[in-house]
């Protein structure tokens, strides 16, 4: 056997390209060189182009006066504010529509997803129709539909649709009564906070007692009553220190109250309805992923129906539901950038739109905008990794 032609004499080394480790090293060095060359090429071109167009790079433009108005702003803003401030106005508007969209999409999505599994034939079919309709139509089209075909065709301010003389809907938006807090109202959030802390303590104590003695209180019901009842009690005791400012028709428009601009309404409706159709599917598949044996085993232990759901089905279903659910939330926040198509002043519309057009600082502006979205998705994926590690099945 020693005469085999493949046997090499001792001490002879194979050529370096046959060595896996060296080959990998060379390949990676080549890759780094190629990427670096590509980046240098781009940077060179950018410098040439910018100097020929007379644009100076840098973030100095952020402290210049913006000079344009923004229709909705959560912080003080006027056309005298700086470009830097337009960034924060846009960012906050993005977070506002994203946050409220996540809330509404979750509520609609869970309702529809559970309805789809209902034993009621009609309800299940209606839920299926909802899902199949809305998730197969592009989001931008839905935004246009709500904005141009629904909200823009509403009657004028004088012929507003009124809901109980407090809420008005017209082509200029939705008008809601605004609560005005008087002195002494500060007590209520404080009570609310105390009630939450007390409830958490109660739940923990109840769990310990349950493990030790087997006795338990309906802790969730008690905390529910405490969290909502206690602030209500304080509210009544302090003589309801809230007055409502009603929107009123003066001339051609409404004054007072909270104004919700139609751009926000259209974007929020479309985002919630569209994302809810995906969430509904996630919820359905999450619940269906729990094998029937689990429910049957729990029933065999004669657990009542609500405990079967709360202790067996929901914890296991959440493990399946939460990862795709968070990625849908992320999609919703990224999709809120479509605001620019109807003029809702979000980050992309205000900052990567108007500010970019006025200053011409394309690279800085786009980089800042992308950095915001990247940060959000990085934070969410960090949460996801933490969550997955926490709920992962412990396997041998």
């Amino acid at each position, binding site marked *: 056997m020693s005469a085999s032609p493949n046997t090499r004499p001792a001490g002879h080394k194979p050529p370096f390209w046959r060595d896996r480790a060296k080959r990998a090293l060379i390949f990676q060095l080549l890759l780094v060189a190629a990427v670096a060359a590509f980046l240098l090429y781009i940077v060179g*071109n950018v410098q040439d182009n910018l100097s020929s167009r007379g644009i100076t790079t840098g973030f100095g433009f952020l402290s210049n006066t913006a000079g344009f108005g923004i229709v909705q702003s959560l912080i003080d803003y006027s056309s005298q504010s700086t470009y830097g401030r337009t960034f924060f106005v846009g960012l906050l508007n993005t977070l506002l529509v994203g946050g409220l969209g996540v809330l509404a999409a979750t509520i609609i999505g869970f309702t529809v997803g559970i309805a789809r599994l209902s034993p009621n034939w009609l309800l299940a079919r*209606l839920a299926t129709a909802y899902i199949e309709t809305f998730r197969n139509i*592009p989001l931008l089209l839905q935004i246009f539909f709500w904005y141009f075909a629904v909200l823009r065709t509403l009657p004028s301010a004088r012929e507003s649709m009124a809901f109980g003389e407090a809420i008005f809907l017209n082509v200029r938006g939705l008008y809601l009564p605004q609560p005005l807090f008087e002195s002494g109202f500060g007590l209520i959030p404080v009570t609310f906070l105390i009630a939450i802390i007390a409830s958490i303590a109660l739940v923990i104590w109840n769990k310990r007692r349950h493990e030790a003695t087997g006795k338990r209180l309906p802790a969730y019901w008690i905390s529910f009553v405490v969290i909502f009842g206690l602030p209500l009690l304080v509210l009544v005791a302090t003589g309801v220190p809230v007055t409502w400012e009603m929107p009123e028709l003066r001339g051609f428009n409404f004054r007072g109250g909270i104004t919700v601009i139609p751009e926000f309404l259209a974007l929020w409706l479309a985002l919630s309805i569209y994302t809810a159709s995906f969430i509904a599917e996630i919820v359905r598949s999450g619940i269906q992923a729990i094998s029937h044996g689990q429910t049957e085993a729990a029933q065999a232990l004669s657990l009542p129906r609500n405990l079967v759901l709360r202790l067996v089905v929901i914890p296991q279903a959440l493990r399946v539901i939460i990862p795709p659910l968070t990625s849908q939330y992320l999609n919703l926040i*990224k999709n809120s950038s479509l605001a620019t198509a109807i003029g809702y002043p979000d980050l992309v519309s205000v900052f990567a739109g108007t500010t970019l057009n006025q200053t011409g600082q*394309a690279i800085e502006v786009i980089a800042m905008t992308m950095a915001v979205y990247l940060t959000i*998705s990085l934070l969410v994926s960090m949460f996801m990794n933490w969550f997955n590690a926490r709920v992962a099945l412990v396997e041998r």
Partner: protein
Amino acid sequence: MIHNQTIIKERPAPSSSVGAVAWLRANLFNGPINTIFTLIGLYVLYFLVVPTVQWAFLNADWIGTTRDDCSREGACWVFINARFTQFIYGLYPREEIWRANIVFAGFFTLIAWLAIPRLPFKRWVAVFALVGFPIVAYVLLHGGYFDLPRVSTHRWGGLMLTLLLATVGMVGALPIGIVLALGRRSDMPIVKSFCVVFIEFWRGVPLITVLFMASVMLPLFLPSEMNVDRLVRALIGLTLFQSAYMAEVIRGGLQAIPKGQEEAAAALGMTYWKRMGLIVLPQALKMMIPGIVNTFISLFKDTTLVMIIGLFDLLGIVQAALADSRWLGFSLEGYVFAAFMFWIFCFSMSRYSQYLERKLHTGHKR
């Protein structure tokens, strides 16, 4: 001993346990809560369906050429009729539409051929669809060769542009996605981190900023004498964006292949590319098809965003037609038409992907 006369004859089941009544009882009216739900559902259905049918069919106007042919009691589909050619082909010259029609016919024939399992020569058809057909389609649509007059890309639009953006984005993203997915699973640290950063970057930003970047920043990245067509810029943005999503789908497929497959191939002395190309990828690609179809559906819907950078895809051309002063006030008809077109495509694709999933997973299902 059995006395025949004592045996009770077979009787039909009571009417309450078979037939329509029983079905209604079992599915709609079992218990008070379900009855309430059913009544609410019926009310919602009545509230939605009756006005919709009246608007879209009973009171609608179908025939005519101008605005005056609309009675305005229901939908006026005359608007869609009058604009139909534009919605499908954009501003493509009327006398050259036959070229677009050939491409459409070829496109749908190829898709059908690849989608219907019974038809033969799948491999060759696929190779032609990926290599030959794009060249043929480009020559036909763009012209400039074989005495075909040139049609500049800014005249392309409508459904044709939507399909073009989605397919080119998809076909371009597939090879990049495969390379990225293999790179992300590689044990070379630098390759792996490059791929991870690339994928996570594109997945982390909204498509609209990618398109802004492609339309505003790409000209800055290239030498000033190089002028890239607007459509090409949008395609580059879409392809890069899509490739990151594709890479994740492919990675999922690769993970589903047991490690033993690759180890067995390595034991036979196969090189990396042979192991991947002959053993792992062919098995993984089959498992990935439903995921690929799903990303294609979302890309198809996302192509509507190109209207924001000034291309006239199906939604863009509908939106432009709505601003026509001769046809003001028909936005509902326009959006319903566009929604219907998109819905038909997306719904049939999602059904196809579900069918494939059932077909490919027969072995695992209990």
